[in-house]
């Protein structure tokens, strides 16, 4: 039985990521990590690839992690965690360890969509009992906002800058959540910190299921998104309400949309407050917004057709 997700109860729980870490103020990733760990009851062992979260939480003699945590390199969080989980199974089988524990990866989109993709795919295929969480901020923020496979169409980054000849990123995002689902693992979901109950329920559900689980969580980055530092939750809510970031889960192949916005907003409302999309509002780039809106509408309809019947309205 998972513990209560009532704010009153949650407020009594220990935050397992100690303060004093060096994440930016208003960073979405630290909010996401905190929410995830608050939802978990069992002892957890965590792993992060190289990235913002990693370089800001364990420096020299200091660590923010009150739980066992390992970082080894950038492209291999899934393989590293799979090694830890395999050692756990070996020692447990041999009676050398008795405690129950869960294994959770916290990785950015670069370490998930791109350089870490192969090791993640391999770990899912082998069926390791672990939860892989991607905090998706849509670019290589740690190295200075370079475009990644998660960067939205049209976004301006330091390696896909909006110029007079090229209007930002000219490629669509990889649909990583679907790609993970195509591995036929028992549980895949997409969540947003704006909908914390939905996010935490997904975490609890994922950890109640044996085998590999994947959750993609939107993680606003005001440095990379060129937005206001206190806008993380507002922007992630806009991402959900415009269907840029639909909330759904796929459990044993069955899709369920977990939140349907009462009033689906136009994509512009999500793009407008972000400097990385500012150039799209110039007349010559309007087509990018239109193309993005058309894709989002088509994807949303397809998703509803697949899993709307059981959707919960909030």
């Amino acid at each position, binding site marked *: 039985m998972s513990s209560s997700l009532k704010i009153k109860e949650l407020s009594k729980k220990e935050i397992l990521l100690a303060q004093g870490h060096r994440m930016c103020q208003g960073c979405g990733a630290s909010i996401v990590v905190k929410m995830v760990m608050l939802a978990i009851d069992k002892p957890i062992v965590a792993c992060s690839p190289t990235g913002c979260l990693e370089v800001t939480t*364990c420096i020299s003699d200091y660590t923010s992690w009150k739980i066992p945590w390992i970082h080894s390199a950038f492209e291999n969080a899934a393989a590293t965690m*799979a*090694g830890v989980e395999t050692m756990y199974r*070996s020692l447990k*089988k041999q009676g050398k360890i008795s405690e129950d524990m869960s294994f959770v990866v916290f990785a950015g989109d670069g370490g998930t969509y791109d350089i870490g993709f192969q090791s993640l795919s391999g770990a899912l295929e*082998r069926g390791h009992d672990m939860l892989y969480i991607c905090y998706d901020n849509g670019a290589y923020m740690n190295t200075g906002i370079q475009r990644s496979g998660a960067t939205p169409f049209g976004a301006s980054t330091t390696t896909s800058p909006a110029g007079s000849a090229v209007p930002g990123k000219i490629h669509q995002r990889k649909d990583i959540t679907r790609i993970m689902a195509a591995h036929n693992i028992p549980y895949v979901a997409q969540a947003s910190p704006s909908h914390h109950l939905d996010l935490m329920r997904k975490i609890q559900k994922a950890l109640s299921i044996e085998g590999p689980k994947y959750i993609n969580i939107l993680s606003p980055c005001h440095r990379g998104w060129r937005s206001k530092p206190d806008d993380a939750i507002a922007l992630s809510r806009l991402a959900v309400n415009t269907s840029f970031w639909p909330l759904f889960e796929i459990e044993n192949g069955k899709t369920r949309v977990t939140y349907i916005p009462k009033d689906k907003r136009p994509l512009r409302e999500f793009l407008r407050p972000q400097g990385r999309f500012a150039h799209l509002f110039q007349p010559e780039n309007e087509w990018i917004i239109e193309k993005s809106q058309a894709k989002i509408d088509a994807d949303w309809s397809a998703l509803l057709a697949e899993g709307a019947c059981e959707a919960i309205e909030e």
Partner: protein
Amino acid sequence: MKKKIAVTGNEALAEALRQINPDVCAAYPITPQTDMMQRFSEFVADGLVDTELMLVESEHSAMSACIGASAGGGRVATATSGPGLALMWEMLYVASGMRCPIVMPVINRALSAPLNIHCDHSDAMGARDSGWIQLWSENAQEAYDNMIMAFRIAEHTDIRLPVMVCMDGFIISHSLGIMEFLADDVVRKFIRKFTPHEALLDINHPVSYGPLIVTDQYHEYKNAQNNIMSEVFDVASDVAAEFENISGRRYGFFETYKLEDAEIGIVILNSAAGTCKDMIDEARREGIKIGLLKPRLFRPFPYEMIAAALSHLKVICVLDRSDSFGAHAPLFVEIATSLYNCKQRPVLINRIYGLGGRDFMPEHVSGVINEMIDIAGKKIEIIPKKYISLRK
């Protein structure tokens, strides 16, 4: 009387792994390492070991998984060859930097391009600066013995560093040789129970592995790593002495062959040393005072002891089975470094042989012996480095 049997190098190492019974083994298939892991997989399938075998999707993931498993707090092994080791390169430094006592046979193979699956030492030499201890083996017996000693060295409380056990691909891995195995209980008693240290899976004592350390402490960290390496000599020496008690086989940091009264000498690693020893016997019958030195512990490198063993020679030919293009080859560089501070220094020549599995034949040894005799007699000009056994 111990039973001598005929096995391939890969069979010998698979048998060692069965006896050692690691908690986790993560590996990826690559020729010529493959049939060693295939054999070990059979031991797993038949329930002869407790090992959890992870058959991962690349060598990079194999080493990453080994690091995770080792940090977890148990005994870990893997094995690879050539390009597989090259793909692991980034993670080799992480394994040693995190002090993960992983043991890895490296079944030596050439690197691409052109693609070549056969023996040379470019793979392990490319990893010589990665902070791993390296033990080199002439034949299946030495590889088996090194493998068993490797766990004791790697897991020693003062060391806790990963170890590579190098063995020549195909020439040893796939050829039958005569050797003897130790009994299972003797091996298990020798390697001892694994003692976890700062285990990640010790859930009640959380530790963080893999911090960011920048300009303030990184330099000191690396100095500490270098200091640990210098402690390997004593540990390797003690482990070898204990091993002699159970096996009757004695291992130093290097082997010398007819070197004491020699005037000229060969320095060579691994299997080709056998061919050289035969040719040295022949040359000795003709009155040529020649000997051989074969390093076993290549990292850390025992410079002073090697200098003491070689400095009396007039001419030394260092035979390298890998190259550093545009420079001297790796073994030569170490031998030259060893001898630099000696009052009397032998003339050194560097000859490259056997790349990509090119046969190393007795006549090639005769060729370098004759060249050294001519150099000693000042009859020919010294050419510092060249390839031998080239086809016309």
